[in-house]
């Protein structure tokens, strides 16, 4: 399989690190794949441009960081400005169109999604924006099944919030549907 080198970025507190952990944990525990997850630990993890790296593969992963992502997710303008120069040519860029204005043409497939807007319209709680993003991501890269993500959510999320997270995941999954050929 193609090796996925994913960078998820946004503002500290938006949950990009949590989303990265859930994705990679699902890949390892329920898809039989190999994954490594890491993150920047500086002050940016609490505001600024937070970043989480995930590598998913079907073979052993040695170097654990992402230098040139073939999948880049940006949830804020600051994250977009900071990380868009490192995307691998021909890669996939996913942005939230409420917070990110695409400012330059790059050699990547660019997908703008109304993640924040739809989460607020249909769920009303911005806390699940990261899970909605994850739903869209797994639809677009097709390496981890939604039911595997749900299994991890069931372990990590308090009982009362599982339904809301599931809804956010489905929402993101469907939002990305029209970009699938």
């Amino acid at each position, binding site marked *: 399989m193609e090796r996925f080198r994913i960078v998820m970025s946004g503002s500290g507190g938006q949950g990009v690190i949590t989303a990265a952990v859930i994705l990679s944990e699902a890949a390892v*525990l329920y898809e039989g794949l190999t994954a490594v997850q*890491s993150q920047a630990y500086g002050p940016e993890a609490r505001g600024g441009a937070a970043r989480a790296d995930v590598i998913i593969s079907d073979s052993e992963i040695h170097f654990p960081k992402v230098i040139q992502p073939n999948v880049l997710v940006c949830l804020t303008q600051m994250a977009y400005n900071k990380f868009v120069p490192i995307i691998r040519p021909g890669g996939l860029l996913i942005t939230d169109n409420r917070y990110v204005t695409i400012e330059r043409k790059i050699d990547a497939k660019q997908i703008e999604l109304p993640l924040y807007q739809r989460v607020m319209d249909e769920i009303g709680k911005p806390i699940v924006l990261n899970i909605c993003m994850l739903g869209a991501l797994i639809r677009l890269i097709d390496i981890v099944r939604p039911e595997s993500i749900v299994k991890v959510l069931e372990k990590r999320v308090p009982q009362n919030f599982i339904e809301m997270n599931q809804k956010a995941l489905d929402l993101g999954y469907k939002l990305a549907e029209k970009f699938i050929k």
Partner: protein
Amino acid sequence: MEKNIKFVQGNEACAEAAIYAGLDFFAGYPITPSTEITEHMALKLPQIGGKFLQMEDEIASLCAIIGASLTGKKVMTATSGPGFSLMQEALGYAIMTEIPCVIVNVQRGGPSTGLPTHASQGDVNQASWGTHGDHAIIALTASNHQDLFEITVEAFNLAETYRTPVILLLDEVVGHMREGFVIPKPGKIPLVGRLRTSVKQGVDYHPYLPREDGRLPMSDFGGVHRYNVTGLFHDMWGFPTDDPKSVHELHRHLIDKILNNVHLIEKHKEYYLDDATTILISYGSSARSARHLVENRRSRGELLGLLELQTIWPFPYGLIRKICADARYVVVVEMNMGQILREVKIAIDDPEKVFLANRIDGSYITPTDIRNILRLIQGKGV
């Protein structure tokens, strides 16, 4: 039975391994990038009947586990560079009094408070020579979570076998990254328990009288025997002595019990060494970058190999000399100014063929960094 697969940070893998090894008592003071070990212990130890104690600082933490170990418990503490500096006096005490304990140092950038959240391997020499006086120590490391689990259990086994503190010298990258690993079934990795004296209550027990094999059976402190424990040179009763013969014997014993057993203690991994003309020597997270480069260049026919050290101290001079004998270039990959490089140069006959591929700016060394240095060494330019 299904495999018990975990997907967690290296720090948590280390903590899980300590519990597997039979840890009873943990005392510590949280510090980045080792905090998750302390957090995990605070959560898990009470659930399995162990004790967790948050201390006022790092030297108190080490003193607390030394005391607990004397009473017969398996013990550990975890810290990073600044805390490890603070522990040095108590580390010497544990060496002199021969108390089994495991000390984790998840390295950050230094000196001083340095770079709390960044990668470094600058404490290699400190692990051996941070505490004063002539002595020997065991320091281990690992580059992935499966190895880290096994090496942590090994640290407890070696601490009991040789009655010595064992340093687990991890780094920020391995400590913080998450990856999958399998928790072995109980009993899969053999555990070494406390060697206790067979001397009965009311019969004289000599706490510092080695058996013929050099080992010293212990008696749980506070139990049936009364004895003295001191950081001063001591006799077989544990009382201070300055008798040259006793001092000489104890000093030799402390060093020989480790240096005479390098062949039993030493662990390493070899990748593509059989026909390698250029050998990389690395350890910890740096070894992951080195391995990445080796796999990549091998697929293009380059005769590159990797020796990954898992035992840092006692340093495996004999192994290095043997493995590097026919290599054209030996390149030590580490995130410091050449602390292992120096030992490798000592180990081999032609030190002029040994080079350093390093980074000391807090950034994790990449395969490209190593490749660029290799090209320079091989006269190919950047």
